[in-house]
């Protein structure tokens, strides 16, 4: 069962929720798809790490074979190729690795070469298999890394929690594509509501069952809670805004492994999520 945890902005508590849900489950997989700044591993401190380098294909030109016909450049929808001063220039970071230019070149002057863009680390932290996608600084897109991870999730390890990148762009779509259920994490502010609305729209478009965890809850009115009631979005649980939890988190500790109170809180949340997922599975079967 794959559960994606997402939010419209950074800092709402995606990692807090996904790390603690994974840790409180009997056996689980935690997947960090926030490849630009993965931080789940800082909490899990996984052992027995195996790394796999991830590469993409980019065109490589044989200048003596190229006759400057420009068919490659005309074909490329992303304008990754320019022909200047009788020389083909390739813009690696603009290339989407479709391979079309190589196929279309009548002179067979283009071949593909590997370009390493990051890595996937797989390790273990007690009951949790920890998989972390890491994109090299300066690379344009982490989607190939996310594809590599999500195409190959072990299915015998119970829940898989996917810690998504913030926002609602292509990389988030890739992360939630195969998810069975989506959890939104929302802050109790008007800004939080705006961002919640973004991911709500996205997930609705993907027709995924979903619910909200209200994080940083204070006494008084919660605009995110009002929004959920208005839209009829299931509220899965509430996490208080307090110093104790904040301190555990900023010390890179997993609160469910440190404190019974939070163990109970996230156990309840996991039960609620499990019920929801099963309910969805039954109604959709």
């Amino acid at each position: 069962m794959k559960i994606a945890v997402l939010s419209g902005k950074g800092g709402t508590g995606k990692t807090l929720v996904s790390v603690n849900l994974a840790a409180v489950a009997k056996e689980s997989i935690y997947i960090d798809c926030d490849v630009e700044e993965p931080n789940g591993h800082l909490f899990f401190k996984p052992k027995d790490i195996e790394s796999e380098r991830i590469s993409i294909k980019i065109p490589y030109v044989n200048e003596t074979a190229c006759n400057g016909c420009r068919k490659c450049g005309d074909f490329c929808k992303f304008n990754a190729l320019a022909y200047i001063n009788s020389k083909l220039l390739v813009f690696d970071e603009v290339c989407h690795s479709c391979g079309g230019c190589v196929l279309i070149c009548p002179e067979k002057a283009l071949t593909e070469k590997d370009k390493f863009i990051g890595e996937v680390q797989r390790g273990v932290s007690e009951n949790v298999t920890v998989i972390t996608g890491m994109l090299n600084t300066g690379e344009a897109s982490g989607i190939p890394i996310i594809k590599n991870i999500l195409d190959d999730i072990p299915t015998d390890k119970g829940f898989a929690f996917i810690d998504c990148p913030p926002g609602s762009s292509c990389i988030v779509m890739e992360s939630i594509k195969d998810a069975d259920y989506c959890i939104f994490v929302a802050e109790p502010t008007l800004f939080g509501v705006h961002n919640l609305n973004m991911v709500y729209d996205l997930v609705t478009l993907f027709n995924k069952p979903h619910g909200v965890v209200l994080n940083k809850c204070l006494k008084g009115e919660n605009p995110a809670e009002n929004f959920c009631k208005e839209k009829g979005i299931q509220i899965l649980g509430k996490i208080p805004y307090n110093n104790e939890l904040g301190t555990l988190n900023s010390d890179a500790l997993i609160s469910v492994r440190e404190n019974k109170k939070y163990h109970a809180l996230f156990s309840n949340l996991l039960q609620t999520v499990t019920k929801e997922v099963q309910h969805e599975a039954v109604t959709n079967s």
Partner: protein
Amino acid sequence: MKIAMPVDDKSMETTVCQSFGRTPYFLIYDTESMESVFLNSYAAASHGGAGIKAAQTIVDHKVSALLTPRCGENAAEVINATNIKIYKTINDSIQDNIDALKDGKLSMLEEIHPGLHNHAAI
């Protein structure tokens, strides 16, 4: 001397376009014959790499100078692979900039921005 300028419309009375890569038109102007030609810039509708495609257009028209308020790093890489000089426009009037170039009052565009990749298109 043949020069190029991103412009908002096909007229000498229009304004200089604030974007190089996504400009709808280019003015190709000959400072000797005072002849002007307006080109549609198909790069404006690109999914990405608009600056590269716009720069390719400029290079293909064999101009000697580009007058623009801004230029991204990919476009600059294409243009700098040639002898084309990039000047910074002083205001949004086409004629003022042509006059300033003739009087030697335009400075080179020093600031090349990192581009607006992934922000201009989905």
